[in-house]
């Protein structure tokens, strides 16, 4: 479908289009009455004002006459600077998105509005603040109806959170493989035995796992019969409230990791750290990037420096779950327009989903104005054997300008990576680094910041 966003096909009530860099949402006949009802309540406008729902305004239908002639209404949304996927979120991010979904549903019911789904993909982030982007999730509430999105909420929000809360293993890899979410039976098999016995887990995980395993005709017909049962509004509200309390109480299980304490134990002195921060701040103040990527952001020290120096927003990438969560909490606490995301640069998010177009990979979303690659390239080149020239090529491909830090073998942090292995990296030198940089970009500034020879370089891509 020309212009239609590849992930917008599930709900016949409407679709999302990208035309000339603008984002439109159609309302089609199956969703028209619901849209008109919800609009009449004024509920969404109040949620747009509070920043919990993405802004939208009605534009003339002729705007999309070529691609969507059957549209009853056409809405225009502001374009999102960066679309992130739930499998890239931190624990705190997924939890915040889950709580937003429950809050919106609870409040909507006061206006006789309900939500037809509970997809984590309907939530995006502005800094650390979750925002619901799907207007057509909101429908007229019919007295006694069941919560249609209950299973989706469990599979895409509750189960991944429970998995990490009870095992200490990040949910990201699992959620990346299972785009529709984690199955109840998979989660049940992975939970520690004692955890399976709590009443909430028995009801929301154990029972669904049991029923889905049964798959018999009698179960299906019982469910079909029961689906005609009325769920009183008070019961639905209680269920949403109980779920809210439960989700809000979940914390990732586990200890502080090496990376979370990195800022305290790295090989810089206080003065050197200050010098690095000044170099980054000078770069940002000169280039004024609207969106800046911070690769290997750790807990967000330099993301914060960049924001204070005038960056519009920062998207951070980090593999360590504890550092990532600390970064997310910092962004929330200090009200930073900073979104730290899970991303392994050695195996970044791929294009995936239906026809491999539904969820875009990282490279396809590389639209940053600038990039920070600080204290990272030795991990890619030495710890993972990627040739240094390729690392430089990749870093320069991400944004038109940026700051890259070269960490020589003599530095204690790089030396530690070589302590137990043979040095097979004769080309890992400052000279190779600078030559590779000069081939691809103009080096606009450089500064050696440690006695061991750590070098910061700013570049502008050729």
């Amino acid at each position: 479908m020309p212009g239609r966003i590849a992930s917008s096909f599930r709900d016949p009530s409407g679709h999302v289009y990208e035309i000339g860099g603008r984002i439109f949402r159609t309302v089609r006949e199956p969703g028209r009455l619901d849209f008109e009802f919800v609009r009449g309540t004024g509920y969404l406008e109040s949620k747009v004002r509070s920043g919990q729902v993405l802004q939208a305004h009605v534009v003339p239908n002729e705007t999309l006459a070529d691609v969507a002639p059957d549209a009853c209404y056409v809405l225009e949304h502001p374009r999102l600077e960066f679309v992130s996927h739930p499998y890239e979120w931190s624990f705190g991010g997924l939890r915040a998105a889950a709580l937003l979904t429950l809050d919106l549903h609870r409040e909507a019911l006061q206006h006789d509005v309900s939500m037809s789904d509970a997809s984590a993909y309907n939530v995006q982030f502005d800094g650390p603040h979750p925002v619901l982007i799907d207007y057509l999730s909101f429908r007229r509430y019919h007295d006694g109806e069941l919560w249609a999105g209950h299973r989706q909420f469990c599979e895409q929000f509750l189960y991944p959170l429970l998995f990490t809360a009870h095992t200490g293993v990040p949910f990201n890899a699992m959620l990346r493989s299972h785009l529709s979410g984690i199955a109840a039976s998979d989660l049940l098999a992975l939970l520690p035995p004692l955890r399976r016995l709590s009443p909430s887990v028995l009801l929301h995980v154990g029972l669904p796992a049991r029923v889905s395993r049964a798959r018999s005709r009698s179960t299906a017909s019982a469910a079909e019969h029961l689906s005609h049962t009325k769920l009183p509004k008070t019961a639905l509200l209680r269920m949403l409230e109980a779920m809210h309390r439960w989700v809000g109480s979940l914390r990732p299980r586990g200890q502080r990791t090496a990376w979370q304490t990195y800022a305290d134990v790295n090989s810089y002195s206080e003065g050197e750290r200050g010098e690095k921060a000044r170099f980054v701040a000078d770069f940002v103040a000169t280039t004024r990037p609207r969106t800046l990527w911070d690769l290997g952001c750790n807990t967000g020290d330099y993301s914060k420096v960049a924001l204070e120096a005038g960056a519009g927003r920062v998207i951070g990438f980090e593999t360590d779950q504890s550092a990532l969560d600390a970064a997310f909490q910092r962004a929330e606490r200090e009200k930073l327009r900073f979104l730290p995301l899970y991303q392994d640069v050695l195996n970044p998010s791929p294009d995936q989903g239906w026809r491999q177009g539904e969820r875009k990979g990282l490279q396809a979303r590389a639209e940053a104005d600038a990039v920070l690659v600080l204290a990272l390239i030795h991990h890619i080149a030495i710890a993972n054997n990627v040739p240094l020239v390729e690392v430089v090529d990749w870093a320069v491909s991400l944004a038109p300008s940026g700051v890259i830090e070269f960490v020589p073998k003599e530095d204690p942090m790089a030396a530690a990576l070589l302590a137990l292995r043979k040095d097979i990296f004769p080309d890992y030198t400052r000279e190779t680094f600078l030559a590779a940089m000069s081939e691809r970009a103009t080096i606009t500034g450089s500064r050696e910041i440690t006695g061991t020879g750590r070098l910061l370089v700013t570049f502008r891509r050729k």
Partner: protein
Amino acid sequence: MGRRVLVALAGATALVLIPSPAAAQYLDPGASSVIVQVIIAGLVGVAAVVRLYWSRIKAFIASRRRPSTGVPTDQQDR
């Protein structure tokens, strides 16, 4: 818990509820979700009934305990 028990439990809780036509949705809620929600509806219903009659239940329990306290018995009279 056997499957029959689950279905019976869900069926039993459904007895306290009134049937209504299912709302048209694009998502399949799944058999498990329907059964879980019906059980929750039942539990909430039972909790509401218990709350409604809580004072009567308390009074009933108190009245069952009363004979053993305070009231003089035949033995004490002697």
